[in-house]
């Protein structure tokens, strides 16, 4: 069939219009509401939900959705989930912040925030699920650069193979409602400790509503002599470090220096002042690779505030 030049022109214009239309739909996608995308990856069922001013990544589990990350479209730099702000308080604990490792990327909001505040710090995220990395880029403005990178690997596997040392290791690895057992054992924390630079710390997001919390903090405390806990509105952020428990005045003084230097949007002094608790009496059973009945412990629920019984106010 021969096309006349006019017919060809019309067809071409129509094709262009269609292409433009589909591009418009793409860019407008984030403003849509409801389910934006559903992906069944090797590890998770991932659902991206949109609202008028937010986008949320959730993992579906037992017919429930567990929020992994959330972003405000009109203010992408905001940390909208309470505990993610607490994840940044570790900055006050370390002598230097040249290198940060995060296990469990989610939407990448926490490390994108840290990246913006500390442009000279090298940040690496280890995420087991390639689709999570893809979706973080697609919906959560996660951008890799020379100093902010993501690798796809199991967190523990990665630490075993990669011998680099880090100033802060952030652990926020959830598969739906729970942390995989091999990221909660004494052997794991010993490995984490061996990958910390002098004065380095580990910061972990732990969910306090079951018996497993008591064991997780006790296990952390069996490897790190000092453990601080921060109430993050439903979740608890645990910080493990070497040496005796930091004195509140010293910590506040260091937080003041950090705050002045980096001008952090969420003032870490306020968090230390209002939310810091010191783990004084760990009561849980220590978990090991050999003995980690996490499924059983998870089944025993406890009051959301009960974890505070094991802690004391900082001195």
């Amino acid at each position, binding site marked *: 069939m021969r096309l006349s030049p006019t017919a060809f022109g019309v067809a071409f214009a129509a094709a262009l219009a269609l292409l433009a239309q589909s591009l418009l739909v793409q860019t407008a996608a984030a403003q849509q509401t409801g389910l934006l995308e559903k992906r069944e990856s090797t590890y998770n069922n991932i659902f991206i939900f949109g609202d008028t001013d937010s986008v949320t990544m959730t993992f579906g589990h037992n017919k429930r959705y567990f929020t992994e990350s959330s972003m405000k479209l009109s203010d992408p730099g905001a940390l909208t989930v309470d505990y993610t702000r607490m994840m940044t308080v570790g900055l006050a604990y370390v002598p230097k912040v040249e290198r940060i490792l995060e296990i469990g990327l989610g939407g990448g909001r926490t490390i994108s925030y840290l990246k913006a505040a500390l442009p000279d710090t090298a940040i690496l995220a280890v995420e087991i699920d390639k689709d999570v990395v893809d979706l973080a880029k697609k919906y959560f403005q996660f951008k890799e650069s020379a100093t902010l990178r993501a690798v796809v690997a199991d967190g523990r596997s990665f630490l*075993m193979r990669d011998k680099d040392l880090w100033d802060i290791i952030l652990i926020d690895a959830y598969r739906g409602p729970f942390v995989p057992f091999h990221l909660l054992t004494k052997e794991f924390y010993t490995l984490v400790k061996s990958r910390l630079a002098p004065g380095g710390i580990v910061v972990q997001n732990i969910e306090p509503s079951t018996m497993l919390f008591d064991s997780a903090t006790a296990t952390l405390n069996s490897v790190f002599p000092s453990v601080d806990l921060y109430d993050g509105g439903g979740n608890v952020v645990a910080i493990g470090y070497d040496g005796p428990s930091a004195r509140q005045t010293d910590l506040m003084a260091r937080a003041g220096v950090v705050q002045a230097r980096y001008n952090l949007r969420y003032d870490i002094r306020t968090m230390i002042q209002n939310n810091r608790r010191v783990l004084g009496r760990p009561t849980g059973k220590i978990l090991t690779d050999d003995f980690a009945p996490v499924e059983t412990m998870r089944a025993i629920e406890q009051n959301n505030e009960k974890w505070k019984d094991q802690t004391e106010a900082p001195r």
Partner: protein
Amino acid sequence: MPASLLRGLLLFIIAAVLGFALMGFEMLASRYLYPYFGGGINTWASLIATVLIALMLGYLIGGALVDRTMSPKLCGALLIAAGAYLFSIPLWVDPLFSWILTGVGDGMAGIIFAATALLLLPLTLMSVFTPFAVRLLLTSVSFGGRLVGYVYGVSTVGNVLGTLVTTFTLVPLFGSRALTMAFAAITAACGLVMILASRFLRGDRP
């Protein structure tokens, strides 16, 4: 109780116990693999494939051996060897897996290598038992179909219980290292019974 009935009972008990231990080992193996290779669907796929390959090899080897020898002693010796191998797992599993992780990586090749080192040999030796049990119990071809059905059925009941009881009760109570050694000892004990009761199990057939 007639001797043939007693013989059947003994072999069925061993079949169930070995079936229990075999799936118990598969569940325990996941606990050894997770810390090194992660706890995803890929770890399970590699583990299940390895166990199925072991079953296949065991059935083939067992069938060939029993037609040649009819010797319960031989089967018993293989079970004791399996038990000894499994008993030693906690001693070498960590250094070996770290070596595999650095040398081979945590992809499919690495996980299958690790699962193979852990389970292929002992589980092959354990599943040699099934053709032995069938052949030792087979006195008449007219009963052959039901006999094979019973042996597999009883062994599968053991499999099911081994999977569920190990996971939901034993691992939370005892931890995986102690359980590995206990199951290994039970496997070896089954082998010992086969050797001690060898004459009885063979019956008075030529």
